């Protein structure tokens, strides 16, 4: 099979599997499983946002959780003030995007190098955490929404169908919505990456100077990538605020940022399906480990239930041993197996993404 046919076949497979999953899950699974799967879908959108920025754009953003949190808080605050969800939903996407555009202007047009970019985005995340965390008093409010500081904002009203306040999207509705949005995000990004724009941002990732000499302005393209990624993170944040009807400053936390990066690195940079796999796998693992060790347990159970400890080991192990991530590594094996079985296969090997970050 030539790469193009393989590509189309892969896309179709993902589409069919996604649709089957979307339709069948609520019919077959118990409600608690559906709720759990909903959060996996929401977080997978967040993983895709970093997959675009980092995996394809080559921009290592340590502050993806800042945009996620901003989306969640924007939705919550706008919802308490407006009561109808169409505008809050759009704001939760637009505000993080606008914020990213502003921040990105400073970063990219200042020609700040990759490493400093990581530190700046980390710093911004910490600023947000500190500020929101300190707004516990009743004097901190926006309109009729109290910010709640470290207590967070409870009881956020759910989304409703556009223009109809009574038609709330709840439970299974949230599952359908999140899964559909995840599929839309995935195919949207595939389309974007297959377009001229996508080719150019990958070109810039591979060799910024060369892309610039060919007449493309890397600053503008990076800024656009960064902004799109932030908008997706904001969308995930909005869904997250809906899912638990609660937001707290911990979603700005470094632990959250670390998680997103771990999803992408475990799944594989430079792919879209990888970060989704990594996200769902790690979340499932965290939940399973946590459930295995109720608080107060001792010995090995407590150590295994210590999620940061395990995540730390996973991150170090992947950086040292599987730097490409799961999906590209498995794909490499498969390709080698195919070539070994069919030695006459022509030299039409798909261009491999050069590992970034060197």
């Amino acid at each position, binding site marked *: 099979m030539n790469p193009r046919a393989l590509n189309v076949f892969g896309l179709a497979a993902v589409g069919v599997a996604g649709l089957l999953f979307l339709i069948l899950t609520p019919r077959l699974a118990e409600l608690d499983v559906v709720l759990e799967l909903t959060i996996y879908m929401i977080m997978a959108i967040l993983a895709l946002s970093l997959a675009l920025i980092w995996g394809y754009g080559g921009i*290592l953003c340590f502050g993806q959780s800042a945009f996620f949190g901003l989306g969640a808080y924007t939705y919550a605050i706008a919802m308490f003030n407006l009561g109808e969800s169409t505008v809050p939903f759009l704001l939760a996407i637009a505000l993080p995007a606008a914020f990213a555009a502003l921040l990105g202007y*400073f970063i990219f047009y*200042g*020609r*700040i*190098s*990759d*490493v*400093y970019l*990581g*530190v*700046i985005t*980390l*710093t*911004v995340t*910490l*600023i947000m955490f*500190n*500020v929101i*965390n*300190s707004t516990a008093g009743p004097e901190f409010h926006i309109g009729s929404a109290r910010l709640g500081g470290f207590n967070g904002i409870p009881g956020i009203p759910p989304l409703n169908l556009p223009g109809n306040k009574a038609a709330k999207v709840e439970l299974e509705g949230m599952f359908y919505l999140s899964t559909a949005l995840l599929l839309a995000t995935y195919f949207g990004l595939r389309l974007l990456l297959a377009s001229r724009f996508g080719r150019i941002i990958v070109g810039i990732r591979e060799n910024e100077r060369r892309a610039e000499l060919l007449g493309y302005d890397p600053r503008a393209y990076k800024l656009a990538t960064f902004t799109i990624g932030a908008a997706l993170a904001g969308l995930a944040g909005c869904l997250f605020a809906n899912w638990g009807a609660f937001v707290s400053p911990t979603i700005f936390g*470094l*632990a959250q940022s*670390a998680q997103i*990066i771990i999803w992408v*690195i475990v799944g594989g940079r430079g792919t879209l399906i990888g970060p989704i796999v990594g996200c769902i796998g790690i979340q499932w693992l965290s939940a399973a480990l946590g459930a295995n060790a109720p608080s107060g347990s001792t010995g090995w159970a*407590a*150590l295994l239930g*210590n*999620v*940061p*400890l*395990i*995540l*730390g*080991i*996973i*991150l*170090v*192990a992947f*950086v*040292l041993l599987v*730097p490409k991530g799961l999906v590209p590594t498995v794909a490499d094996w498969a390709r080698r197996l195919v070539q070994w079985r069919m030695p006459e296969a022509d030299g039409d090997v798909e261009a491999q993404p050069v590992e*970034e*970050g*060197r």
Partner: protein
Amino acid sequence: MDLSILLAIQVLYAIASLAPISVGLAIIFGMMRVINLAHGEFLMLGGYAAIVATGQGVSIWIAMLVVAPVVVGLIGVVVERTIIRFLYGRMIDTMLATWGLSLFLVGLTTAVFGNTTVGISAPLGSFQIGAYRTSGYTLFVIVVAAVVMAGIFAVLRFTRLGLIARGTMQNADMAAALGVKPSRVYAITFGVGAALSGLAGGVLAPVSGVFPTIGVAYVAKSFITVIGGGAAMVSGTVSASALFGTINQIATFATTPVFGEVALLAAAIVLIRLLPQGITGRFFRRGL
């Protein structure tokens, strides 16, 4: 008058608590181009080392000034040999691997010491400035910071070890050709950087107490100090600490500690936009 003396001491103290936590990072970053995101956790381990040693009956001075740096320095060497040495030249990967290490250390200390703050009381009582009282320990922290910075400068500038370290940093291949083992220099450098973080952790333990996630509070601050300072390790760290410490303390004085931190971080972002090479990229270029 009394108030301005007090404010001056507070500003000096803010600078003095920023410089030692940053200089270990500056050495590791400047010499080895390794971004150590577990730096805050080294600090935390220094704090725990000091507190545990004090609990075992060791004098608090020895616990802070000897035990903490030695323990963390040894941990640093182990980390360099087991993780970092595979990642030289891959800066982003060092960042990710040390972040994993930091999560691991946070998880481990939570499992061992529990998720609570432990502290030791600061020695040295307090003294009077006019109508105000301030703690003598504040002055001690300032003195330690000054001694540490002067010591690093002296070692780098005047000793053979410093010469080898600077030479390896400039051109590792040439240093190797002259008979220096770069791998040993790197291991020692990483250990020294870690030991300095441990020292800072030990000295700051009586001020803030120690808990497993304390590192997060320091790591961003020390990073932006290093980046704000630029290429020169000692003069860069000192000048950036002076700038950011002053901004932090004045904003804290005018509003709340939280907004003091925010002012510090925001100032750092503006500074990096204006001087991407850091302060020593433009000023004190010939500094060390």
